[in-house]
């Protein structure tokens, strides 16, 4: 699928990405790397084991990558989770809230993945 279409489907602005990263071939490469990045798995494991610090870190990494690749929905979802965890201690954190936010991230991730195939 063409990159332009890809981005349009995600509701993202392809032109911005192109301006920042300059080359289409590179963008392909990065998107592939994104899909393969272990952070998603790490996040999943962390949610299951309720390791809040790890959750925070993994979500944060995902957010960074999403920002770089101009994928606002994924970035927003990740940011949502990190901000939730940022100012509360692990005692106060509500695992169900966390799981809910995680699901959103997972959805976005799946969307991207499907589009890439």
């Amino acid at each position, binding site marked *: 699928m063409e990159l332009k279409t890809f981005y349009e489907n995600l509701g993202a602005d392809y032109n911005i990405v192109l301006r*920042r990263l300059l080359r289409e071939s590179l963008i392909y490469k990065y998107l592939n790397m994104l899909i393969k990045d272990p952070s998603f798995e790490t996040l999943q494991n962390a949610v299951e084991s309720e390791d809040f610090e790890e959750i925070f870190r993994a979500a944060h990494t995902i957010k*960074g990558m999403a920002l770089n690749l101009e994928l606002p929905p994924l970035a927003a979802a990740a940011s949502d989770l990190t901000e939730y965890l940022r100012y509360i201690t692990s005692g106060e954190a509500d695992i169900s809230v966390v799981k809910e936010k995680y699901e959103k991230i997972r959805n976005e991730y799946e969307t991207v993945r499907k589009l890439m195939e």
Partner: protein
Amino acid sequence: MTSTEQKKTILIVDDAELNRALLSDILQEDYNIIEAADGTEAIEILKKNDASISLILLDILMPRMSGFDVLTIMQKNHWHETIPVVIISSENSMEYIEKGYEYGVVDYISRPFDSNIVLQRVKNTIILYSKQKELEGLVKEQMLEKESNNALMINILSTIVEFRNGESGLHVIRIRIITEILLEALRKRYPEYAIDESHIALISNAAALHDIGKIEIPEEILNKPGKLTVEEFEIMKTHSARGEQMLNELRFGSDEELVRYARQICRWHHERWDGNGYPDHLKGDEIPIAAQIVSVADVYDALVSERVYKPPYTHKQAMQMILNGECGMFNSKLIVCLTEVDTYLETAVSLRSHDPAHIFNINQLSQELFQKKGVKLSDRTLFLLEQERTKYQFIASLSKDVLFEYDFSTDTVLFSEKCREEFNFPSIITDFVEKNRLYGVISEKDFQDLITRIESTTSAAPVFQKRLLLSTISGTQEWYEFIGRTLWADNDGNEELYSCVGRIARSQSGSNLAMQELAQRDALTNLYNQGTARKIISQTISTDPRTTGLMVMFDLDNFKKLNERNGHLFGDQILKHIARISENNIRKKDICSRIGGDRFLLYFGELFSEEFVYPYCTTLTRALTQKYKDSEYTVSMGAALYPQDGTTYEELFRHTKEALETSKRRGKNCFTRYRDAHSRQEPFPEAVPE
């Protein structure tokens, strides 16, 4: 970036591969990129490459070791002072940013990355940082120069004062050196005295002024050849207080630390630990440590110097006397320090007395001052150098061979300790090439050959190797391999010989080297000497008894008269000349030797026929008797064939000699072949100068 400049290196630290790839792609055209996936990896890379990394792009949130942890370790190793760190993180909360700056982070690049922006920021940061380094370097250089001039002035002035005292300028230099050495030892061992590097420099400087008060002492007392009377001695003793007074009355600078030390030293360098000194009878640590040290230095130097009333004592004697308390009581801690630096003291004083530039470790002073201003640039470099040196010394100590290191600018060579065991020369030698300090161990010619060989290396081909005959400590001569490499310094595009390191190892004797082991050569001509020639010729004969060989012996006619007329040096030149010609006229496997003052022996194994003898000898003679520098000379020659004229070396030799003697009897300047009692007479054609 111009093509002649080297690409700078950037380290990217981020746990997400995507992020590293992004940055790497942006920067890799203009920079070398090293990547690290976590903090630990980053630290390892820094340890190996910290001198070559120009910038670090660092993520904060990473597993196991966060970016801040990395920064902490960098601070500990002082890397943060020379390598700028830029944080790449999507964390842009105020507290993170502030924390970052606390760690000395230089800039923040947030996500999403824009290629152009990243490139610009990186470029700017690197340029800014390198400019800073440059500036620091310049300032340091200027400080060094200033301090150097200061030290020079003090040196000059105090030397002048000392001259009037009848001391040589050497006294001042030595006092400084000894003071410095003792202070160093004190600093390490007794930190309670709170002496740091800049103090050492200042005190050593001030020490030069210790006898400045003697300017006011009348000459008759100062330079009296005999013992001083009691009254005269009392007057002499006033020089301490007078010196301090003069410094007190300075209109300027009397508050300077240097002057304060100088006042202490002047007034109290004759005080003693038990209170029996002068002028104030201070006791123990009432005496400022600077004065205590200078008084020890002064006593030592007086002992090892010549005086009107005594000869110089040796270092050992002086040490003995001081340790026995024969020269007054000193602080026991100083005595400990003195004992510690015993051997070093002796060498250092003799070495450094020759080079005033090294007396005062100016570097240390400037460095200290620099540190106070918070710039630790040279610290790290010095530390690294120290590391390398320690490594090298350790490896060197493991080797059973003698290792050496030579510096071209100071003409000084350092040998590893093994050299004393093996050859009995000291491990530090100055004026090495200039004075051929290895004389006695190595022949003059070999030494020059070695130097030539070393000087003919280039930075592209720096390795050299030479086998040389050396005299060992047991008096024998053994073969050694000199192997080494030269190091080059780049001086604005020109490459200069800077230094040289290498190893001297015993030669391995293989069976095929048996011949060479036997080889002992004549020093002047480098031909074989008689003993060797005999061995080789005998061997040749026994190896192949059926091949005809030719032995030729010749010498210069009237060599003695030649020497008398032109001098022995000229005679030597002719001999060398003849040796060269002989070598040029024989085949590789033939033997050419010098067996007497002006007598030479040649041997040709594998001769084709008897008929060859006459034409060959004629040609040889013609070649030999070409004029040498307008001087005409002639040779007489004798020849004998193997096996016809002799079947053993001894017989052959005897007959060849007889033939030569026959030539002499016949009027010289001719050639005779041996033939029993009836020598065939073969006159030469006249020697024709060609």
